[in-house]
């Protein structure tokens, strides 16, 4: 197996997940961290299994490489992210108004912050891409 960044990342998630889980079982943290630890552990193991299969199975490797480099897949992924962003903005704005009317001001404010953050990310990304291309 050649040097593969994703293998190291998977191992990192496994180790971090195991540490968090063991830490909780030793009675040092609450269940939130152990839950997160177990989730990271599972993700790490699944990722590692996929990477091992990638390196051992030539047919699987070819399929994965084609999928990753396929320009239509990239186009679809970019479009899907754009749609997700638009949808988030739309649903977020509706939720802000509805929650404000319902008197849930704190939740409404939190959502409005995330909508503003998304707009800032969009603007920064747009300016960056504008300079790049």
């Amino acid at each position, binding site marked *: 197996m050649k040097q593969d960044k994703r293998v190291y990342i998977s191992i990192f998630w496994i180790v971090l997940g195991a540490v968090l889980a063991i830490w909780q079982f030793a009675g040092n943290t609450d269940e939130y961290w152990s839950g997160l630890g177990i989730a990271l552990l599972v993700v790490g193991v699944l990722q590692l299994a996929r990477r091992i299969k990638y390196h051992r199975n030539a047919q699987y490797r070819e399929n994965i490489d*084609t999928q990753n480099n396929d*320009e*239509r897949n990239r186009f679809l992924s970019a479009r899907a992210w754009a749609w997700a962003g638009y949808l988030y903005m739309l649903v977020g704005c509706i939720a802000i108004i509805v929650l404000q009317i319902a008197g849930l001001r704190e939740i409404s404010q939190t959502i409005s912050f995330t909508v503003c953050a998304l707009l800032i990310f969009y603007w920064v990304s747009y300016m960056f891409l504008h300079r790049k291309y």
Partner: protein
Amino acid sequence: MKNRIEEIRKGKGIKQDEFAKLMGVSRQTISSLETGKYNPSIFLAYKIAKYFEMTIEEVFIFEDEI
């Protein structure tokens, strides 16, 4: 943008999945190209035209789209 990929490919007796492999894309991409659902990048269009030993204009029919 319309194209003659399916016609030329079939004329050469190449299957969709074989052609996809040669072009380094998925079979679904070739299928979408042939049905006109997806327009290729200039790189893929060039690669396809080069493989068919044709010009891009001979494979892809440009229509003014507004």
